């Protein structure tokens, strides 16, 4: 990780230790672990009985019930699982907008979630999304050891196959961290990520200048991703049109998330990095205070 970012991302990690991931309404699943799952497993926690069907393990037949009722009943126990969270960070260049805290906010948020996962004894994986989706080497450890490839994707997230090639854990919790500032239909992205997940959280991380452009006058706007240029005279009317367009974008993503039973969380990077207050994530039922 960039040495300049490491101290602040580490601070975010420490802030995340004060929280724990909140188990979603749909019970997450994972590898056999130490937490009770919602499915049938092999833990000592009794869950229910059911009729024996051929193929059931005879060791699970409750012979005492058979002696009393002359019926073959199988004793079901709850499964023991290790919940899992997949954190996907948009690695396009727009996330490293100069003059903003978006890159630190994205990595810090991921670090905080990792800390919360560690605190709740969840397994976790961290991915970078872009032209080449990849698992971040060293992301299973402390953020200092993350080998972040950098925010250098030239294509917006919507123009790349989202999470293609990644083995996202089924029934895991997935968190997408992106500014979502690209012109694409959000539904394919949301549906792709929500598929097989126990819960999906879409975190829109915007810079303050994305949320409320502070400039006025004649500007030559440069798209940090594509290098495209557009010259505008930023007056109150033009600014209002921009804000209207941003609001429409958020509404589109919100609608897509509701349709996929996902949660959309809006965060301003500069507000997040100023003290790493994660109450927004608590309100969104992604984290809980621990």
């Amino acid at each position, binding site marked *: 990780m960039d040495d300049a970012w490491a101290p602040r991302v580490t601070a975010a990690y420490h802030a995340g230790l004060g929280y724990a991931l909140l188990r979603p309404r749909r019970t997450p699943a994972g590898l056999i672990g130490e937490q009770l799952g919602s499915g049938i497993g092999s833990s000592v926690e009794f869950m229910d009985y059911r009729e024996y069907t051929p193929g059931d393990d005879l060791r699970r037949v409750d012979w005492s019930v058979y002696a009393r009722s002359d019926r073959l009943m199988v004793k079901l126990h709850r499964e023991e699982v290790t919940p899992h969270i997949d954190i996907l960070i948009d690695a396009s260049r727009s996330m490293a907008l100069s003059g903003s805290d978006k890159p630190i906010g994205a990595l810090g948020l991921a670090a905080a979630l990792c800390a919360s996962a560690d605190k709740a004894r969840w397994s976790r994986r961290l991915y970078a999304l872009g032209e080449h989706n990849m698992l971040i080497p060293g992301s299973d450890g402390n953020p200092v050891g993350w080998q972040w490839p950098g925010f250098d994707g030239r294509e917006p997230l919507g123009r790349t196959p989202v999470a293609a090639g990644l083995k996202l854990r089924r029934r895991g919790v997935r968190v997408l961290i992106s500014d979502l500032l690209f012109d694409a239909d959000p539904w394919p992205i949301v549906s792709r990520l929500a598929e097989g997940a126990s819960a999906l959280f879409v975190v829109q991380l915007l810079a303050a200048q994305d949320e409320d452009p502070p400039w006025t006058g004649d500007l030559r706007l440069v798209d940090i*991703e594509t290098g495209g240029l557009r010259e505008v005279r930023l007056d109150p009317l033009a600014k209002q049109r921009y804000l209207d367009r941003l609001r429409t974008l958020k509404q589109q993503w919100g609608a897509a998330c509701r349709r996929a039973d996902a949660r959309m969380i809006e965060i301003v990077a500069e507000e997040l990095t100023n003290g790493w207050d994660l109450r927004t994530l608590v309100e969104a039922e992604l984290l809980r205070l621990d």
Partner: protein
Amino acid sequence: MPIFGVPLALIGLAALPALTAIYWLRTRFRRQEVSSLFLWALVAQAHGGGRRATRLQTPLLWLLELLALLLLALAAAGPYIPRADRLIPVMVVLDDSFSMSAMRRDGRRVKEAGADAIRQELGGIGSFAARFVIAGPEPSLAGDSITRLNDIDIAITDWRCESASAAIGPAVALAREVGGPDCRVLIVTDRTPPEDESATASPQPDDRVRWRTVGNTVPNVGFVNAVRSADPTRDQLLLEVTNFSDESKTVTLTILAGVDKDLFRNLPDSHPVGATREIDRRPLELAAFETRRLRIAPSGAGRVLVAQIDDDALMADNQVVLMPPDRDPLPVSVAVNDVTLSKAVTSAIEATASARVGSSMPVLTFTDRSLVTSEVSEGIAGGWRVEFEVPPAEGIDAYLGPFVIDYRHPALRRLSLAGLVRVSAGRR
């Protein structure tokens, strides 16, 4: 071609690049990186600057403002196309006397102030067709008619201010004759207008005659007369120096012996005091308007003498060049058949004391007939000839001039035909 009545107003055109600079500076775009441009797609793209490819897309308002400024500047300059039948005829009479070349108190020459006065007067008229009359001892027309202020300098090229006097009245009369009864007459001089309007020789004095006095009174001391005696045996100078100012002045009179007279005659354009030595110097204290007469016997016999006084506002009268008297009479012959005429011619030649009649090798022959070759070979006649035409008693025409004199011949160098009446019989 349009003419601008107030060309100075064209300075307003400087506002055009200024306006362009203001727009250019105001519309210079600041570079700003953004996360994405698609949110700005609905924001109207600005025009008026930026990359080279779009710099030509100038805002309409800027073009309209440029056009408005251009029209305002042109309107203020007062463009017009003069029509020949609308031009106001103006005759400008220029005082050609030496005093017009004097220096004024403000350091400018009177002539320069006169040229400015002409521009001012003609500029105030607007559409004009001006001709110039130079008022020397004899008035004369100068150059062609002009209709533009810029042509004034060319038109007054012949205005040299080297005349001993300026006949303003005859010049105005000539101006009226040339310009017609409706023309305006502008008189540019250093004199004050005469109280008697008839002095301008205007047959009907009216407001069409405008008198511009461009000079002012400055002290001047100058030679008003200088004579070197014709007696070769007794070289003597008569100098008259006048103080024209109303206060007493003290000047230094210096007399220099210059180059040899023959050298100066052969090279008249050379400076007469090229190789000089001072032979006399004396202070002159002159009362106001006093004329001092001096008789000086110089020691520079045979050489060109230069008398000069201190520089003042008018330099032209501060120096006189005096040639030594001629000592070799010119050999001439008189071959006139008419006895009366022959006597008259011979008497006139002898009266000059500069010619010797009856020379064997005359350089100038006065005759009233066609000479034959034998006469020339016998020395009766030779060189240049002055022929008299004796007209018959009837059908006489008189011719007043002009006469062309070839001054290359030494005998004609001092000849003046002013006042000569050439009489001939009928048209020839």
